[in-house]
């Protein structure tokens, strides 16, 4: 939607207190009159400063700008831009867990300042400088004594249910968040978590009984409850938050036993090949000088760190939840600020979804990156997924303007393993076939054979 020369973001329509818009490439937020009380108290009570200090909220400036919708406008804010927007279905277990704990910690601080979070959407959290931060400055309302927490249900659906399913049933159930935009329905979570859930106090209360209460009161024949029953002491609310926090904290998942978990310990690379690859990459990255790097098939981020440690923002995508989890743990442990591990299946990348397919962006819509790394990836796309080479070339061109790609030939032991159980229907999968296919959209700047292997690294520039 366009108002004068500003474009309102497709994800910003639910909350009547304000909306996000872009003008000349800069992101702004309009605070409406209806959101003025909440915004002013956030700023005047010291809560904003406290959250900034804890690195739990996105910093913003007040901007002197003509509002796109002047009739309702109170103020215009210019928030700091998140380098790369990511979604809960792209996070590893610990990322979602940290997002949940951050949300609860913010709600606690809000209550101390006489405010309350009016929503607890996982989409309001983003990762910046290695930390989970709230990006919705308008999520706060003044707290009135006796008030219940309107966002309780949303918290359970967006955070608790997927975390419990990932930890206690199967890590892959986190992907249910792709289908259920407002979090996983609690009756679905309850049925998948039963019977074990009934022996865990927190899950029993916040998922099991919660699902039953929803079912009971969704019956239209039941009379609506009296407002008197909705009064709740602040001590009660604090105890409820504590219980949620303890329940979340106790959920854990250990990345072990998956296909790629310790890939680098059992790969066919020799130390020399590994070191040689590092050096070539490092030299090329410096020459390309990218601000934004996407490492596709990054595993636990060993090569992504060549870029991120040189101060370039690097998203490290991998299909394996264990690799992404290991990568994130490393980010936390070393307090790394320029790397963002994300879950991504490149044979079925994140799509445009939500209302009018405009709420959550596809992977390509969040690009293009200045540089793509595609190391030890092409054989998975070309041979395991049967994707023709020109198709791979075209999609990568959509994602980035420069590309460092490793060609893994048929003589490589990994490829031999892949072809051992199937017919070789890939006559074009050769270095010459690769170069021919990619030359339509890319220009070869440089190439370098990887020492001690049959693999070749290419530096390509988009045409």
């Amino acid at each position, binding site marked *: 939607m366009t108002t004068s020369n500003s474009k309102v973001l497709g994800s910003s329509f639910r909350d009547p207190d304000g909306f996000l818009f872009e003008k000349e490439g800069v992101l702004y937020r309009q605070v409406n*009159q209806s959101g003025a009380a909440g915004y002013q108290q956030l700023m005047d009570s010291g809560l904003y400063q406290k959250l900034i200090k804890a690195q739990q909220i996105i910093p913003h400036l007040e901007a002197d700008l003509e509002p796109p919708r002047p009739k309702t406008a109170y103020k215009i804010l210019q928030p700091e831009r998140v380098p790369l927007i990511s979604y809960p279905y792209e996070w590893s277990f610990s990322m979602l867990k940290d997002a949940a704990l951050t949300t609860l910690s913010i709600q606690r601080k809000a209550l101390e300042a006489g405010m309350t979070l009016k929503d607890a959407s996982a989409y309001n959290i983003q990762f910046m400088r290695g930390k989970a931060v709230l990006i919705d400055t308008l999520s706060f309302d003044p707290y009135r004594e006796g008030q219940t927490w*309107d966002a309780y249900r949303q918290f359970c659906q967006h955070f608790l249910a997927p975390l419990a399913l990932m930890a206690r049933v199967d890590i892959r159930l986190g992907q249910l968040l792709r289908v259920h935009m407002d979090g996983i329905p609690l009756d679905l979570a309850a049925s998948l978590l039963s019977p074990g859930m009934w022996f865990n106090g927190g899950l029993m209360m916040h998922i099991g009984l919660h699902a039953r209460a929803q079912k009971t009161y969704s019956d239209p024949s039941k009379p609506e409850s009296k407002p008197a029953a909705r009064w709740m002491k602040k001590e009660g609310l604090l105890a409820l938050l504590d219980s949620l926090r303890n329940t979340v904290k106790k959920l854990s998942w250990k990345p072990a036993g998956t296909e790629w978990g310790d890939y680098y310990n059992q790969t066919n690379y020799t130390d020399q090949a590994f070191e040689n690859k590092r050096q070539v990459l490092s030299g090329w990255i410096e020459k390309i000088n990218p601000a934004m790097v996407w490492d596709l098939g990054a595993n636990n981020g060993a090569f992504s760190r060549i870029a991120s440690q040189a101060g370039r923002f690097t998203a490290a995508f991998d299909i394996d939840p264990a690799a992404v989890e290991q990568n994130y743990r490393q980010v936390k442990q070393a307090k790394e600020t320029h790397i963002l591990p994300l879950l991504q299946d490149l044979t079925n990348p994140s799509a445009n979804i939500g209302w009018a397919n405009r709420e959550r962006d596809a992977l390509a819509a969040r690009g293009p990156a200045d540089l793509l790394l595609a190391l030890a990836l092409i054989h998975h796309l070309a041979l395991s997924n049967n994707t023709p080479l020109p198709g791979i070339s075209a999609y990568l061109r959509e994602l980035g303007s420069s590309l460092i790609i490793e060609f893994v030939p048929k003589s490589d032991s990994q490829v031999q393993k892949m072809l051992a159980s199937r017919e070789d229907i890939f006559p074009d999968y050769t270095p010459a076939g690769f170069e021919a296919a990619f030359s339509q959209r890319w220009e070869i700047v440089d190439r370098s054979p990887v020492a001690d292997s049959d693999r070749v690294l290419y530096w390509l520039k988009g045409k």
Partner: protein
Amino acid sequence: MTHNFIILAYLDPGTGSILLQVVLASLLAIAVGFRIFWRKIKGIFRKDTALEDPEAENDDE
């Protein structure tokens, strides 16, 4: 400073979720009260360790 703005919730909290929350909050608050009381009782008998209760909860993560 005071503002006279109307505050309207945009999220549907859900009737079942609200009523369960009220019940859970009261029960959990009682449990917290009992824990504090129990800690004090224990403190009377173990004055030397009461100040360093390892079970004391941290307020933040």
